[in-house]
């Protein structure tokens, strides 16, 4: 058992960290957020150059054939530096779906990998769609192709994307595991209405209405997409949790620094046991979350990550992340409440990470819904003589 990053992964992390440290300080991030675009072209270009955009995709598709551990190695840093660029939404979900459906779509994936085009994943339908089987947006057979009707919400990078990868119901009713399709939609197409907005955590997003959007047959990426959607969400969930864990690490480090230097009553506030114990709890929470991230990612790399593992990871990342971030704000006091310090932005980031793909509440409950245990339940004769 080895849960350490390989030398290659460590080198990739070093390169990325050096770049972010130099180029992506908090002021730069603020400027990118203020632009309303949700990303900076030069940053995205550099990500392409570093190979981040190619990382998770098979070499046959122009990718680097990286593993989920490679992705986690990168995503932790994206979380640590509060990167708003849509690595998760564009690469780990939308492009991932393209790659997993083997759809060439006019070389779209290659263009995404090159950083020339952006794609977005239109899946969420409101209130946090934890279970893909609940997708309701309808894709009806129409002429030679399909007709989409419905709404997708919280499409991250939706207004910036050249194409939307849309999950839709081609058969059955919400709640059915089958009947799901993936389709490619040009947002400029008739019937597509975008309402762009910014998320609380500084991302560009859009609500997307699809009213009688007629698509040609080749817009269909997969007519039986359940397994692909599950795999995409699994990968995206792990990457998102890695971002959250990266954010937690930054929160812990910044808060410990602050407690060591901020003085009240003539001593660093870390001298007060209430503050010290809160810091200890933050470290314990971070340690747990990171152990779970590394362990379950290794399981995923070995092809052994179960839905149960994913629920454990997502649940823990959400709950521990929020606990750490709230503790960080409280420890920082007044300045922690301002938009000027990164602390509150980390809080918003971990909140958003919890809200995507099922909250910790959701996943804990799923974990609790175990089937009847194999072992018989009633005490046997002689068990307690």
């Amino acid at each position, binding site marked *: 058992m080895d849960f350490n990053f390989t030398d290659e992964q460590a080198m990739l992390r070093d390169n990325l960290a050096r770049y972010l440290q130099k180029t992506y300080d908090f002021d730069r991030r603020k400027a990118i957020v203020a632009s309303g675009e949700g990303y900076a072209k030069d940053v995205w270009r550099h990500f392409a150059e570093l190979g981040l955009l190619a990382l998770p995709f098979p070499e046959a598709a122009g990718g680097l054939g990286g593993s989920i551990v490679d992705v986690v190695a990168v995503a932790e840093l994206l979380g640590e530096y509060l990167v708003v660029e849509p690595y998760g939404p564009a690469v780990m979900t939308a492009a991932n779906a393209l790659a997993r459906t083997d759809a060439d779509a006019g070389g779209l994936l290659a263009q995404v990998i090159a950083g020339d085009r952006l794609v977005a994943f239109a899946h*969420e339908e*409101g*209130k*946090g*769609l*934890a*279970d893909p089987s*609940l997708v309701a947006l309808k894709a009806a057979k129409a002429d030679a192709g399909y007709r989409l009707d419905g709404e997708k*919400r*919280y499409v991250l990078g939706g207004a910036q994307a050249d194409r939307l990868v849309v999950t839709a119901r081609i058969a059955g009713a919400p709640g059915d595991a089958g009947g799901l399709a993936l389709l490619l939609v040009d947002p400029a197409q008739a019937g597509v209405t975008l*309402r762009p*907005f*910014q*998320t*609380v*955590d500084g991302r560009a*997003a859009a*609500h997307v209405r699809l009213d009688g959007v007629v698509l040609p047959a080749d817009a269909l990426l997969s007519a039986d997409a359940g397994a692909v959607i599950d795999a995409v969400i699994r990968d995206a969930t792990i990457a998102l949790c890695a971002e959250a864990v990266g954010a937690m690490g930054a929160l812990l480090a910044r808060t410990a620094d602050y407690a060591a230097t901020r*003085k*009240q*009553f*003539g001593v660093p*506030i870390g001298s*007060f046991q*209430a*503050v010290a114990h809160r810091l200890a709890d933050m470290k314990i929470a971070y340690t747990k979350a990171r152990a779970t991230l590394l362990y379950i990612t290794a399981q995923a790399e070995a092809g052994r990550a179960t839905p149960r593992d994913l629920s454990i990871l997502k649940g823990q990342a959400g709950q521990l992340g929020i606990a750490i971030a*709230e503790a960080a*704000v*409280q420890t920082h*006091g*007044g300045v*922690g*409440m*301002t*938009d*000027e310090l990164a602390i*509150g932005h980390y*809080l*918003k980031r971990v*909140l*958003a990470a919890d*809200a*995507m793909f*099922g*909250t910790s*509440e*959701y996943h804990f*409950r799923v974990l609790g819904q175990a089937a009847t245990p194999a072992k018989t339940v009633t005490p046997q004769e002689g068990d307690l003589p």
Partner: protein
Amino acid sequence: MDIDLDPELEAFRSEVAAFLDTAPTAAIREAGRKTTSVFAPFDEAMAWHKILHRKGWAAPAWPAEYGGTGWSVAQRYVFAEEYRKRDLPPLLPNSLKMVGPLLIDLGTDAQKRKYLPGILAGEDYWTQGYSEPNAGSDLASLSCSAVADGDDYIINGSKIWTTLAYRANRMFMLVRTDKAAKKQEGITFLLLDRVDYPGMTIRPIIGLDGFPEQCEVFFDNVRVPQSGRVGAENDGWSVAKHLLKHERGGSAQSPTLRRYLELVREAAFATPSPFGGVLAHDAVFQRDIGALEADIESYQHFEKLSISGHAIGRDAAFPSMNKIMSSELSQRVSVMMRRVAGLEAFSLQLDALQVGANVEPFGSQLDLMAMPYYLNSRATTIYAGTNEVQRDLVARTLVSRR
């Protein structure tokens, strides 16, 4: 023990209800629905203050001879209940609940004559200048200085967390007048007639919720008259401590908590659960909101007992316990709001939150207010003495520390 229903009280309730149903303008009602902080939207809160003043109801807690209503504490609780039921915006607290009562107790006759009418009428808004960048929980280490010069003081330094200073026209503050004295002993309490004295600069600070509620105020040789001093020079600490007593009894924050919980519950009836049905029928939601409801009710019982004159309200730990309970309950309510709103809480809708904005929000009222309320409420355990300091004070009533 006896708490028989009081028919007079019910008649009073009807009178209050009738007024509150008709007096507020549409904008004031909207401001109430868009209040996501202890501080309601400024313009509408002040407009509503003026309307209440005309009715004579702006300052129920003030003594009648200064313009208070003369209501019993029970009447004040009823008023608070009816007020909250209608989601009306709270009046801004700095003037009515802080500097006003302070002046009534400790101001000179001249100060009372000069300032109380404007406070009562809602003509003036006072910002509070206590904290400094290096004096937060440890307020007594403040360093913003005032040096006597003829009939004036010359102020240098800065103040932070001066709520809505950029909308204020007056300011009350603590300054250091004796640097040689021990921490608490060289502090003076000052009233400033203006916030635009030469040398004063106000910088709004954007909060986590995106709103410029807080400010920093810089003083560069600002000359103010000594006549604004409350109490003796270097006795400002005891003046500031006196303010605390106004936090005892008579407050009624449980109606707000109950109302917010009701909003959460209502929204849960319109929110699907990922496990089927609506959230309001979900067992986990029911248990969690039930536990919170019970705790809010206990807080209400605590408030009502203190209002009734029960000894619980005279416990030395009362103000700190009150602050801890109310702040932590409001945070818990805000977490429930966020939970019900779910992902829909994550769109930044600063425009739609403006009163009178012609911007359609993306979702429900709860979706709109959940995140700013949650974020803003993170401050409740920090301001007015962090909850760590409050717990120290509660513990001191049980065990004396070194």
